[in-house]
């Protein structure tokens, strides 16, 4: 750094510090807490409305003699069984194609995040997470341009986690999910990659977490990629955890893989 850029750096830091030190932190924190309360209120209202809608849909289906499986998909909120240790029925109608799946009971109390084409459930008091995506776009490892992968390409991109030095890939197997070709594997990440999991559209910036989703070092992804044919993007689902790095790693891996296999078997596309 030469004299000019040193002066420039110092000037920016001093200017920022001067502004920062004159901030009214208490007032700003009050505003933040009000924002948090407002977000929570909106979330509670939304959950209540969506749950009521789900109940109405089921009730209407029963009244009309329609099998519940044929009911239109609704937002993926926990249903009336969500507080029990029973699986949680999720109707993922943001995906292409939409799907229903019975996720583990802990999803009922998870912190959810919703994307244009995906869902993410973060275990509240643990380190597991479940994610469901229709992967229309993503950034392959080390790529500068966004990709629009088909099934085979997406499988290859995930296998590249190992060949490109981002971690290890194991337990690769081909199978079917609701009768559709699928590949399962376990990817243990030692390096993170912005935008690798999913992006919303062709113009997204890989580092914008509102539209693109990263994979993170220190996490193990037990995943399945499902072929939806040439007319729809492949479906990517995973259950991830950090517990592979603890002393009970082997047991944890097996437990999570078993949990994934259980809910994967309940997946139905519409």
């Amino acid at each position, binding site marked *: 750094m030469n004299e000019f850029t040193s002066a420039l750096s110092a*000037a920016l830091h001093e200017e920022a510090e001067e502004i920062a030190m004159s901030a009214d932190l208490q007032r700003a924190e009050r505003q933040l807490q009000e924002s948090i309360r407002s977000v929570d209120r909106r979330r509670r209202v939304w959950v209540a409305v969506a749950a009521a809608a789900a109940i109405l849909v089921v009730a209407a289906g029963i009244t009309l003699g329609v099998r519940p499986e044929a009911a239109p998909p609704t937002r993926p909120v926990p249903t009336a069984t969500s507080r029990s240790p029973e699986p949680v029925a999720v109707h993922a109608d943001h995906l292409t194609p939409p799907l229903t799946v019975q996720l583990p009971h802990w999803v009922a109390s998870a912190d959810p995040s919703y994307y244009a084409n995906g869902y993410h459930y973060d275990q509240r008091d643990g380190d597991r*997470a479940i994610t469901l995506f229709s992967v229309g776009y993503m950034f392959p490892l080390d790529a500068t341009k966004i990709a629009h992968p088909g099934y085979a390409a997406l499988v290859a991109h995930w296998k590249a986690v190992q060949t490109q030095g981002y971690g290890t890939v194991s337990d690769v197997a081909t199978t079917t999910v609701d009768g559709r070709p699928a590949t399962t594997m376990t990817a243990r990440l030692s390096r993170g990659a912005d935008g690798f999991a999913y992006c919303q559209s062709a113009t997204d910036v890989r580092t914008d977490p*509102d539209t693109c*989703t990263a994979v*993170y070092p220190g996490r193990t992804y037990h995943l399945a990629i499902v072929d939806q044919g040439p007319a729809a993007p492949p479906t990517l689902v995973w259950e991830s955890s950090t517990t592979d790095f603890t002393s009970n790693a082997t047991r944890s891996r097996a437990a999570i893989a078993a949990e994934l296999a259980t809910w994967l078997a309940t997946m139905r596309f519409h």
Partner: protein
Amino acid sequence: MRGTDDQWGSVDAPRSRGAAVTWLFHLHYRRLLGLAALLVDDRGTAEEIVQDAFERLYRRWGALRSPEAALAYLDRSVLNGARSRLRRRFTERSYRLPEAGTSPSAESASVDRRQRDDLVTAVRQLPQRQREVIVLRYYLDLSEDQIAGWLGVSPGSVKKHTSRAKTALQKRMEAWA
């Protein structure tokens, strides 16, 4: 400057979403306000941008897996918020930059202080993209590759904007000298 790995891993690190966001707020609000203020021109807008960034962090908390991700999210939210507001401002009215030699700091008592203020004023007068790369490079200390990733442009483009910005700043400083 941004690293809080030790703080995050400490026994005091909160586990609930609200507590964690509030905790990060205490640690990083001032720094982010400084960043926002370098990217936009008025204090009130900078405060709004930072508030929005923390609210978005709260809403997106479940999708972020690490302290690095949360901090990077905040930085990028502030950058995106500033860009969005500047776009709006340019749409609403023609934005007039002060002419060279009319630096508001011209009467500053201290020579060092005057030079600093002149430099900051000159940064504020740069075209938006040049201003962004200068702030990201010399305030956040990001590499050209990182800036390229944040702005969604090529590293070559970052290099070009940085070079043009530095040339413009040096000329402006010479004109004010």
